[in-house]
C-alpha cells in the first residue's frame, strides 16, 4: 500500500528519466545514504570497519567496474585482478615519484593507467568473444602478476617485493582511523556509483548493451563496435583500477602482487554473477554477499559443529567455503541468471501491486 506510484505524474521527459522515477525510491535511497554517512560511523566498531565495511565498499567499486564490462557490454573478463594491481601500483608510483602528488590525483592517475591498459588488452575483443576473450584477459592477469613480482622498478626496488603507503592525506584531511577510511571509501563509491548509473542510462550505456545483446544489429544501426567495446574496457578498467589503488592504499596499507591474483579476478566475476549482471545495485549486493559469506561461515560452522560435538578445523571451514561458493554460483546460473538484483526487482514489482495483485 505504501510503495506505489499512483498520482505521481510526470510532466516532462526529464522527470521521467531521473534515476529513481518513483518518489518512495528516492527517499529510501537518500535515507540509506544518509544513514551510511552519519549512522554507521556511530554504530560500527573497528572490527566491522576493517573486516566488513571497508572491503565491502572497495570491492563494490571494483565489482561495479567489472559489471560495466561483463554485465552491460557483455565482454567477459577473467583479468580484473590484474587491473586492480595496475591501478594500485601505478597510483603508488605516481605518489612516490612525483613530489606533492595529492592522494586523489594518484588514485585518478592510477585509474587512468589501468584504463589505458584496459584498452590495450581489450583489443582482442574486436576479433574474438566469449571464452576466447576470457583467455585474452587471463593473459593480462598472468603477465601483470609476473611483471609486478619481477620488475623491480614497479615496486621502487623494495627488497621484500611488498610496497606500502602511509599518511593518506585527502586535501588536508588525514585519513587514518578506520571510521575515516570508511567515510572516504563511502564517498568515492557514491560518486562512482552515480557516474556508472549516468553512463548506463545515456547513449554510451545503450551502445554497450546493444553490443552485448546483438552485435551485428548494433553495427547496422551505426554503433561502432570498436568504440563501444574499447570504451567499455577503458571505463571498466578505470573503475577497477581506482578500486585497486584504494584496496592497496586504504584497506591493506602495504601489499604484494598476490593481493591481486587470479583468485581476485574470479571473486569479482562471482560478485557480478551472484549480484546480477547488468545491474548497478546488483554489484553492491554481490560484493556484500561475497565479503560477508566467508566471515559468516567462519563463525557459524565451528559453532554448528560444537552443537553436535564435532570440532571443525579451519581447513574444513575453508573447504566448506569453496563448496558453498561453487554450489551457489551454479545455483544462481541455473535458477536466477540475473542474480540477487532480479530477486530484488521482482519483490519490488510485487510490492507495488500489493495487496491487489490483479
Amino acid at each position: 500500500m505504501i510503495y506505489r506510484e499512483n498520482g505521481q505524474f510526470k510532466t516532462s521527459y526529464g522527470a521521467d528519466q531521473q534515476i529513481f522515477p518513483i518518489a518512495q525510491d528516492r527517499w529510501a535511497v537518500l535515507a540509506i545514504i544518509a544513514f551510511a554517512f552519519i549512522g554507521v560511523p556511530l554504530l560500527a566498531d573497528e572490527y566491522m570497519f576493517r573486516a566488513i565495511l571497508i572491503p565491502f565498499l572497495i570491492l563494490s567499486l571494483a565489482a561495479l567496474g567489472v559489471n560495466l564490462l561483463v554485465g552491460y557490454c557483455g565482454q567477459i573478463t577473467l583479468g580484473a585482478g590484474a587491473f586492480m594491481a595496475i591501478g594500485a601500483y601505478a597510483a603508488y608510483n605516481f605518489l612516490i615519484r612525483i613530489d606533492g602528488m595529492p592522494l586523489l590525483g594518484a588514485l585518478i592517475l592510477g585509474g587512468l593507467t589501468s584504463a589505458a591498459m584496459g584498452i590495450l588488452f581489450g583489443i582482442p575483443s574486436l576479433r574474438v568473444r566469449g571464452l576466447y576473450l576470457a583467455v585474452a584477459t587471463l593473459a593480462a592477469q598472468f603477465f601483470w602478476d609476473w611483471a609486478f613480482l619481477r620488475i623491480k622498478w614497479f615496486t621502487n626496488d623494495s627488497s621484500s617485493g611488498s610496497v606500502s603507503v602511509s599518511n593518506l592525506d585527502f586535501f588536508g584531511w588525514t585519513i587514518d582511523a578506520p571510521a575515516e577510511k570508511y567515510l572516504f571509501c563511502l564517498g568515492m563509491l557514491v560518486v562512482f556509483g552515480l557516474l556508472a548509473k549516468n553512463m548506463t542510462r545515456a547513449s554510451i550505456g545503450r551502445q554497450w548493451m546493444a553490443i552485448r545483446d546483438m552485435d551485428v544489429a548494433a553495427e547496422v544501426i551505426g554503433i561502432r563496435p570498436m568504440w563501444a567495446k574499447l570504451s567499455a574496457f577503458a571505463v571498466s578498467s578505470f573503475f577497477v583500477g581506482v578500486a585497486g589503488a584504494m584496496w592497496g592504499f586504504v584497506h591493506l596499507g602495504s601489499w604484494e602482487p598476490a593481493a591481486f591474483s587470479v583468485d581476485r579476478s574470479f571473486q569479482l566475476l562471482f560478485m557480478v554473477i551472484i549480484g546480477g549482471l547488468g545491474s548497478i545495485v546488483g554489484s553492491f549486493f554481490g560484493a556484500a554477499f561475497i565479503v560477508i559469506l566467508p566471515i559468516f561461515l567462519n563463525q557459524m560452522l565451528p559453532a554448528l559443529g560444537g552443537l553436535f560435538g564435532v570440532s571443525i578445523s579451519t581447513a574444513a571451514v575453508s573447504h566448506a567455503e569453496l563448496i558453498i561458493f561453487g554450489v551457489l554460483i551454479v545455483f544462481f546460473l541455473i535458477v536466477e541468471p540475473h542474480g540477487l538484483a532480479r530477486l530484488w526487482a521482482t519483490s519490488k514489482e510485487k510490492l507495488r501491486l500489493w495487496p491487489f495483485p490483479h
Partner: protein
Amino acid sequence: MAFFLETLIGGLMAGMLYALVALGFVLIFKASGVFNFAQGAMVLFAALAMARFSEWFNAALGGDSLLLANILAFIASGGVMFVVAWVIERLALRNLVNQEGATLLMATLGITYVLEGVGQTIFGSEIYAIDVGMPKEPVMMFENLFEGGILINKEDFIAALIAAALVAGLSLFFQKTSTGRALRAVADDHQAALSIGIPLNRIWVIVWCVAGIVALVAGIIWGSKLGVQFSLATVALRALPVVILGGLTSVPGAIIGGLIIGVGEKLSEVYLGPYVGGGIEIWFAYMLALVFLLFRPQGLFGEKIIDRV
C-alpha cells in the same frame, strides 16, 4: 646443440602432458559446447583419489603387492570419476542446456570450486605421492651422435608414450564405435541428434566420464612426477592456451598445441628468461595464444565460425 635438443625434448615431454589436459577440454567442448574450466580440478580430484586409494588398498593388502593395490585404486578412482561425471551432468549441465558459452564457462568455474572443496574434504589436503613404479633415473641417449649425449628422463618418455596411446585410443573410439558416432552427431547439432533418438543426457555423461578418465591418467602422470597437491588444479590454467592454439574442437589440435606450448615455454624460459628475470613461462604461453588469437581466432585446426545475419 645437445643442450638445445635436451631443452627441446624436455619441452615436448611437458607439452605431451599439457596435451593430455587439453584433450579433456576438447572432448567436452566438442560434445556439449561447454568450455570445462573444471578440467584442472578434475585432474586434482582424480589424482587425490588415486593417491589415497592406492595408499589405503596397499595398507589393506598388507603392503604385499603395490601393483595389485594400484590396479584396484585405478578402478576405484575411475568409478569415482564416473560418479563425478554423473553428478555434474545431473545437477548442473542438464539444467543449463542452451545457455550461452560464457554462462556455461562460469558454471564450470563454480564446479571447479566444488570439486576442489569436496576432493580435499574427502581425501585430505596434504601432499601425497603416487607410486606406480615409474622409473625415475634419467638415461643418456644418442651418445654416438653428440658429444656427451642427451639426457632424457625415462619417466617423461613413458608418460609421453601413455599419452600418445590414449590419444590414439580416443581417436579410434570417436571414429569407429557407434557411441563415438553419436558423440560426433551431438557435437554437430544437439537438436538434430536428439530428434533421431540419440539420448543427449547419456552421451554427456559418457563424455564427462571419458574426460574424467583422461583427467585420471593426467593426474597419475603429473602426480607421480611432482606429487599430488593443490597446485595440480592450476594445471587447467596452464593448458588453456594450448586449446586456444590448437583449436577448441580439434583432438590433433590439442596434441600439437600442447607440444608447441611445451616447447615454447621451455625454450623461452631457457633462452629468454635470463634477460627478463625468469618465471616468464607462466605468461609466455598466454601471450603466444593471444597473438595467435588476433590472427587466427579459430586456432590451428578449429572450425571457422561464420556469423549469419
